[in-house]
């Protein structure tokens, strides 16, 4: 599955079925690597620690992997069209602050401010990258600083903003609540993924994303409005950052202006381990879902272990490298298959 192949499909890409085979779940067997890696990590840690392999802990891990998963799937949308977004960490921090302040004025309804802030920054990034032809690294680094500074300015004294009264109780209870044993936050995450999957595989817009990612010039030749698609992809990435802010608000009950440092790189790693390529043209939300689940399972396992946090960081690094290597290996297998 080389880029040239993807590109020729994009140009010819008229039949949804051929596209689905090429890019859909069935055509992307290699994304099962994420599932395998997650299961192996879970098995190893369950064997090592008494309370790891339990339903409660599975629920625990599911309640924790949401922020990285949602941020990564947003990142995946822009990586698909050959971009990336360095601002996601700062944008979700800003979104928690603004949403916390709006909620303090309006009650729980104010939570909608979070995705709105995300979309606003997504539109800005998208417009800069497409219409103004600013390179993604500069455009999104600029908006990273804009969002981080904005978050610190918006929060009194640059400190955490406490969500007051009932709204906070509702948010924190949602973090602990579960439906038939599945944490509400995990359901929230899953719904987000299903929406993204629907957009990618069942809408004309989704097909255009693949076309622009595969080869923007050819896409333009067949009448795709490349700039508009680019803006929309960044807007969806920003929207995902806004959803991440909601997950963080559920976990902490606070607007946190300094949260999310380093998350831009982690989300990029999540997208890439999940099967995206920085050269664009590839995306699979299910791969990203399991990549994030794998990272959180490993992190939780290391938290169970009691090894030095410094050593834990190195193990985490090795796991990510291993996942990357497996991805390359499986790519080779399934290309010839």
């Amino acid at each position, binding site marked *: 599955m080389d880029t040239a192949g993807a590109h020729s499909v994009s140009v010819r890409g008229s039949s949804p079925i051929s596209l689905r085979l090429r890019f859909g779940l069935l055509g992307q067997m290699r994304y099962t690597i994420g599932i395998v890696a997650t299961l192996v990590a879970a098995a190893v840690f369950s064997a090592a620690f008494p309370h790891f392999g339990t339903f409660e802990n599975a629920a625990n891990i599911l309640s924790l992997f949401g922020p990285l998963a949602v941020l990564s799937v947003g990142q995946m949308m822009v990586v698909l069209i050959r971009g990336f977004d360095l601002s996601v960490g700062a944008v979700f921090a800003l979104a928690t602050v603004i949403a916390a302040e709006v909620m303090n004025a309006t009650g729980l309804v104010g939570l909608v401010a979070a995705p709105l802030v995300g979309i606003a920054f997504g539109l800005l990034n998208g417009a800069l990258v497409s219409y103004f032809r600013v390179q993604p690294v500069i455009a999104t680094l600029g908006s990273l600083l804009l969002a981080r500074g904005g978050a610190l300015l918006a929060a009194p004294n640059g400190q955490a903003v406490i969500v007051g009264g009932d709204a906070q109780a509702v948010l924190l209870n949602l973090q602990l609540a579960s439906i038939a044993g599945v944490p509400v936050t995990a359901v929230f995450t899953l719904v987000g993924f299903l929406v993204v999957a629907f957009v990618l595989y069942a809408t004309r817009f989704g097909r255009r994303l693949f076309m622009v990612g595969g080869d923007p010039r050819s896409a333009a030749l067949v009448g795709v409005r490349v700039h508009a698609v680019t803006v929309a992809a960044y807007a969806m990435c920003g929207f995902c950052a806004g959803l991440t802010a909601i997950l963080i608000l559920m976990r*902490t009950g606070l607007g946190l202006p300094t*949260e999310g440092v380093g998350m831009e790189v982690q989300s990029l790693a999540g997208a890439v381990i999940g099967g995206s390529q920085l050269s664009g043209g590839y995306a699979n939300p299910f791969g990203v879902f399991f990549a994030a689940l794998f990272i959180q399972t490993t992190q939780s396992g290391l*938290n*169970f272990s009691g090894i030095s946090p*410094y050593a834990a960081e190195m193990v985490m690094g090795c796991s990510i490298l291993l996942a990357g290597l*497996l991805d390359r290996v499986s790519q080779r297998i399934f290309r010839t298959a």
Partner: protein
Amino acid sequence: MLCKALKCLALAASALCLSLPAAQAADLTIGYSVPSMSSAFWTSATYGVEKEAEKAGVKLIKVDAGNDNNVSQQIGQIQDLIQRHVGALIIGAANDDALKPIAERAIASGIPVIGFSTPPNTDKMSSYIGADHYDMGRLQAQCMGKAIGGKGKVAMMSFITGQIWADLRAKGFKETLAKEFPSITIVAENRLATTRADSITVAEDWVQRFPDLAGIYTTVDDMAAGVVPALKAAKKSVVVTTSNMSPAAQKMIHDGDLPCSSIQKIVEQGRNALQQAVLAARKQPTTKTILLPALLVTKENIDTIDLSSVAAPANYRP
């Protein structure tokens, strides 16, 4: 090819298995969660906790949120420790309000919580261990007042708010200056810098803004370790005072770059925290509050003061 890949994975997995310490070596497991073990304070604190755990024969699980600001990461890690069914939890909070719900959840599920230096904002803890931070601020103010001759402009790097210990130190410093050195004025206060790198930027800003600045108060020695070389490089003679006593701070006092540091017995606090955690886990009575007294270290007494209860040895890694 796939078989090979899986073999690789299995190999790595078993290697990981072997490298993990035996889980059930001790009958009691204590969880320990702090914002960032790479800061000088938490390094020494962790050293005390770890040494005492070895002495008591209990297993210690340390987690580190990686940064003073990683609130949600710390909450997630404590969630993991609750799942791990630790006997008791020692928590130094990245943000006292944010850690309250998760601490209360641990307590509700039967895991007693020991607040350590920056406790979660709850009154349901079994014990709180800290230092007399107000006194540390007071000692710094007296040292600063003497070092700059009782008059002039002083700026403060007071660490982030929401960290009670930092608030108390700043309060002790301000109130003591106002009372004992009324001719000293505080011209600026920064509440964002926490690291060496942040502090350098702030200090460079200040010497531009206030050319006649006489002194800079820093909440922790990591900040002073950033400020002192930056001021030296800018050829400014501004007196810097600080608190805590990492190897870097010891060297600066020896070299005369710092007139003093007010210190707390950090290692001793760590030992106390672990002792209280073990008592709480075994359902034995705990001490509600343990505040260890502050000391002032100067060039004159640094060689005679016993630092083993204050700082971890330089070769220690958490």
